[in-house]
């Protein structure tokens, strides 16, 4: 602790940070541009100037940049001193000399850090009369707009994009006053985190193109705290709605999970909510039915029969799955996953429930000093994790900085000192990955090889871990090298997951985690969906196994909850399965091949209109809330399920409580989020900003008198601009705003004194915090013998295209790859196949015709099959298949 004097007042602060961060954390207003809490200080914009006094007698002081000044005991600072204010206002005036007269037609307007700082420094009228510099813009792809005229050359964009996110296609071009931030030529920004430029750039140079297409100012967006639905990490988001349409997603700060950044799938995948594929009315035998009584009657009729089963969903909430289980009964509850998928999830869950190491939060991932990734393409299956891993690689440079007595936030100096030194990253994969460039060791091999490598590694680190024989001398050397690195590490992290469809890889990862000698070891296991872990807590076998009961006539009605079964097996197999269903009821929000076959299709709410709890891959239970009210005939998924039976759970809280009590693991979650009765100063929390406009005109075309605001009985939030503006718990905070801080930088007013966590605690509850000893898993079987003509299916994941929901967003669609199957170049040559050749793939059920893609970096013996692309065959990883080139005349799938 140290005493810091600011404008004559003493504050108790902790040492180690820079003055700017400390002052902001104290709640003071100090303008800045180039500093970013996650990017550190470079001191280039000169906006954060303050006076530093030598001692109590010194009244003159000298100008210093707060972001470059370490806090020291007894430091005396003049923040409001006239000279400092004058300096800051002059700097702003200089930055504004070339700024265009754009605010009214600028997407940033109303949440612009430059606007805020301009007002804060008091620069109100333009004196500069010379010509303004102008720039041409570039096309940057479907996600981001570019309007270079608005740049103030703070360098935040390139520092984020290149230094932080590892991108290599955004540059500073030109010289002196002409610098230009863009690509070497117009084209799609390739980095998976490009969307963060929208929030990182303090001006309107980079703005959200998808928002622009249905633009709404921040003050007009109705928002709610939400959780990203597009992978298993559970990043916190704040989606915004206007006129019944979801208009955008921005990051919602979480000190332990996503911090300041989201990936592009999470940010731009929201548009499926507005898609024409949404189900808006109930369909009975394909006929639209709007009479609620007829629907309920039909629905109940199908349910009274005891011969009913339910199929769960890993993209629906815990509560919805629980409601389904209650409706059909425990014995009739099936997981909506294929056999392999389910057993992998069970394997992961077993590891999570008794973790042999700390299950790392994303923040903890950033603290790892050695990372090993086993068979998981995290950039594509859990993108935000890849960004965290990139930060972990900097720990080596922070250690170096310490020896040089450099503070870690002195960004440019630390990077300069470290040059290209990275903490070790070991990647074991059957194809090249986006992280290879920063990896210290790449182990290339199919999942079997990866598993054997990890088993051997575990054995090398811990004698009791089962060994494997028949490694090649080269592999042995690699094991030796990696073992050395890992045994030295104090905070090693093992990342694996279900991505390579291999239980061996998971078992080997478990052994490795257990074998690591470090006391602060960590693990992170990736699963496919937002609630894969949550639904895994329910007992139930794969729906595939219900087939026998159906064939026996044991089952009449099948209720599918938000699940497209066609994504969990081959088309022929699933069609056959569905053919034996007598009455198919599907509850879903968007049309999909399963929903199209439903006898009764019930329209449920998307994540933007309902609420629920999700369990992230970290085992963190988190609540998401409805952003907008339900439209006409749509109901919450859990309400449909409640209606079918006893019509219990009128309110979400009742269901949530029942669900948490029913599942032992969820007990800690009971105290998680304030319930619907929670009030701030006796009032609910408004979803709409207090400057929300047009309330008496929005629906005036339909009826001139305003309707009552829709009531929300399910949460402490209200669909209104009225309510308490006072401090609300972070889990209930729809978005950030503070007086003078209209941009997202207002988040500094919501963080605790350290600036690292949210005041009131980061939301969510971790369920599996206790570390266990774990057990050794039996070693891999010897490698099976395969004919050269036999190929083994290996899933290839795509950040854009592999996830079901985001595929409904048009911007994401534009970035998804076309259908293909992939072969390694040498093998393709052996088989006499060339890039783009039409090939036929023979599986157990069918023959598929697809174009071939030659993929350098892919292992031999593997046929890469992209996951989840609409129209792509779904075949379990590890399946052996045959491939042949199609001759002219052979065409059409059979």
């Amino acid at each position: 602790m140290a005493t810091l004097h600011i404008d004559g007042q003493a504050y108790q602060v902790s040492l180690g940070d820079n003055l700017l961060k400390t002052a902001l954390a104290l709640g003071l207003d100090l303008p800045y541009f180039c500093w970013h809490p996650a990017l550190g200080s470079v001191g280039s914009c000169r906006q954060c100037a303050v006076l530093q006094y030598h001692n109590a007698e010194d009244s003159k002081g000298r100008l210093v940049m707060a972001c470059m000044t370490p806090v020291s005991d007894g430091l005396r600072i003049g923040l409001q001193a006239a000279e400092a204010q004058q300096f800051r206002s002059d700097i702003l005036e200089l930055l504004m000399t070339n700024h265009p007269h754009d605010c009214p037609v600028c997407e940033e307007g109303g949440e612009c850090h430059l606007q805020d700082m301009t007002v804060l420094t008091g620069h109100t009228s333009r004196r500069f009369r010379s010509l303004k510099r102008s720039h041409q813009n570039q096309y940057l792809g479907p996600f981001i707009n570019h309007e270079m005229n608005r740049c103030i050359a703070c360098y935040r964009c390139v520092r984020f994009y290149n230094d932080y996110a590892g991108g290599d296609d955004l540059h500073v071009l030109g010289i002196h006053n002409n610098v230009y931030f863009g690509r070497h030529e117009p084209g799609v920004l390739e980095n998976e985190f490009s969307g963060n430029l929208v929030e990182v750039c303090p001006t309107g140079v980079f703005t959200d193109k998808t928002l622009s297409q249905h633009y709404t100012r921040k003050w007009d967006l109705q928002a709610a705290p939400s959780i990203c639905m597009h992978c298993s990490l559970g990043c916190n988001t704040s989606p915004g709605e206007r006129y019944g349409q979801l208009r955008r997603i921005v990051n919602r700060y979480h000190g332990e999970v996503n911090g300041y950044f989201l990936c592009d799938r999470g940010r731009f995948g929201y548009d499926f909510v507005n898609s024409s594929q949404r189900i808006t009315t109930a369909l009975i035998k394909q006929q639209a039915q709007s009479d609620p009584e007829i629907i309920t009657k039909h629905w109940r009729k199908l349910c009274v029969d005891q011969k009913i089963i339910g199929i769960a969903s890993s993209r629906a909430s815990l509560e919805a799955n629980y409601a389904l289980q209650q409706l059909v009964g425990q014995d009739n509850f099936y997981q909506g996953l294929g056999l392999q998928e389910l057993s992998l999830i069970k394997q992961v869950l077993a590891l999570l429930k008794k973790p042999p190491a700390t299950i790392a939060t994303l923040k903890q991932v950033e603290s790892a000093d050695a990372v090993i990734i086993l068979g998981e393409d995290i950039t594509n299956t859990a993108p935000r994790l890849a960004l965290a891993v990139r930060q972990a690689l900097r720990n080596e440079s922070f250690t170096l900085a310490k020896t040089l007595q450099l503070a870690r936030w002195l960004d440019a100096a630390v990077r300069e000192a470290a040059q290209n030194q990275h903490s070790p990253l070991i990647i074991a994969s059957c194809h090249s990955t986006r992280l290879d460039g920063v990896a210290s060791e790449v182990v290339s091999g199919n999942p079997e090889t990866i598993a054997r490598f990890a088993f051997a590694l575990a054995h090398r680190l811990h004698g009791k871990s089962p060994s494997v024989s028949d490694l090649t001398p080269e592999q042995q050397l690699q094991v030796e090298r990696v073992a050395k690195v890992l045994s030295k590490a104090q905070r090693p992290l093992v990342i694996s997951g279900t991505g390579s469809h291999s239980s061996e890889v998971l078992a080997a990862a478990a052994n490795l985690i257990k074998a690591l000698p470090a006391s602060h070891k960590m693990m992170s296991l990736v699963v496919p969906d937002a609630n894969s872990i949550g639904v895994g807590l329910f007992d139930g076998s794969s729906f595939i196994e219900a087939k026998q009961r159906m064939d026996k006539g044991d089952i009449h009605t099948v209720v599918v909850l938000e699940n497209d079964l066609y994504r969990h097996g081959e088309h022929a197999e699933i069609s056959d399965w569905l053919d034996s269903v007598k009455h198919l009821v599907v509850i879903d929000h968007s049309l999909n091949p399963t929903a199209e076959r439903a006898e009764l299709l019930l329209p449920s709410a998307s994540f933007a209109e309902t609420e629920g709890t999700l369990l992230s891959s970290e085992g963190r239970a988190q609540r998401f809330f409805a952003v907008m009210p339900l439209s006409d005939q749509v109901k919450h998924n859990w309400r449909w399920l409640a209606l079918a039976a006893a019509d219990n759970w009128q309110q979400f809280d009742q269901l949530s409580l029942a669900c948490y009590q029913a599942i032992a693991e969820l007990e800690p979650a009971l105290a998680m989020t304030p319930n619907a009765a929670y009030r701030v100063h006796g009032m609910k929390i408004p979803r709409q900003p207090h400057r929300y406009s047009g309330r008496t005109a929005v629906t005036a075309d339909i009826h001139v008198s305003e309707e009552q605001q829709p009531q929300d009985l399910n949460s402490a939030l209200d669909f209104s601009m009225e309510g308490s503006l006072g401090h609300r718990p972070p889990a209930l905070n729809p978005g950030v705003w503070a007086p003078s801080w209209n941009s997202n930088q207002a988040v500094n007013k919501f963080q605790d004194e350290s600036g690292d966590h949210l005041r009131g605690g980061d939301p969510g509850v971790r369920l599996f915090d206790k570390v266990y000893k774990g057990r050794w898993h039996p070693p891999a079987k010897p490698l099976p013998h395969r004919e050269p003509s036999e190929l083994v299916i290996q899933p290839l994941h795509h950040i854009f295209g592999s996830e079901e929901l985001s595929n409904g967003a048009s911007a994401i669609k534009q970035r998804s790859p076309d259908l293909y199957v992939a072969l390694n170049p040498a093998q393709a040559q052996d088989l006499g196949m060339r890039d783009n050749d039409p090939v036929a793939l023979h599986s157990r059920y069918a023959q598929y015709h697809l174009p071939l893609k030659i993929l350098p970096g892919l292992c031999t013996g593997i046929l890469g099959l992209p996951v989840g692309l609409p129209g792509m065959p779904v075949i379990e990883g590890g399946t052996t298949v045959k491939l042949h080139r199609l001759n002219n005349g052979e065409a059409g799938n059979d």
Partner: protein
Amino acid sequence: MNSFKLCIDLILSQFQTLGTVLQHTFTKADTVEYPEQQVALFPRYRGRIVLTRDPDGLERCVACNLCAVACPVDCIALQKSEDQEGRWYPDFFRINFSRCIMCGFCEEACPTYAIQLTPDFEMCEYDRQSMVYEKEDLLIDGTGKYHDYNFYRIAGKSIAGKGKGEAENEAPPIDVKTLLP
């Protein structure tokens, strides 16, 4: 002593007031016999709102939403749209005149002089629903009170017919490839 003087003053002031009132009996009336007689209104009178066009005859409103957020009764709603070449305009623009208090805040907030109040207050309707005006009802053909201003000529955003560097007081676009100062 002072209170005695105060008393006298107060009494005198009563007579003064009576005198003033009496005087008005003989002066010309300020009120007019509306509707037989029309009212003389000044150009800056705050009445029925219009949306104007710029000197080139194009819609002035850029759908910036500033009027909507400034409106104390929240009676303006609109939606931004954008043409092929980057010009912002409102897709719809609605004013609920049954709520409008003619305060003029919207006009003051408008950065383009698009929204203007006019000297017309004759907006009585039998049906309140008819007080809801859409863009078709609001948009006029002229420039209203401000004849010369054209926002897009000054803004840095390019639109059809005005590329980068062609706005007022703007230098031609930078060639990033040159190394010359």
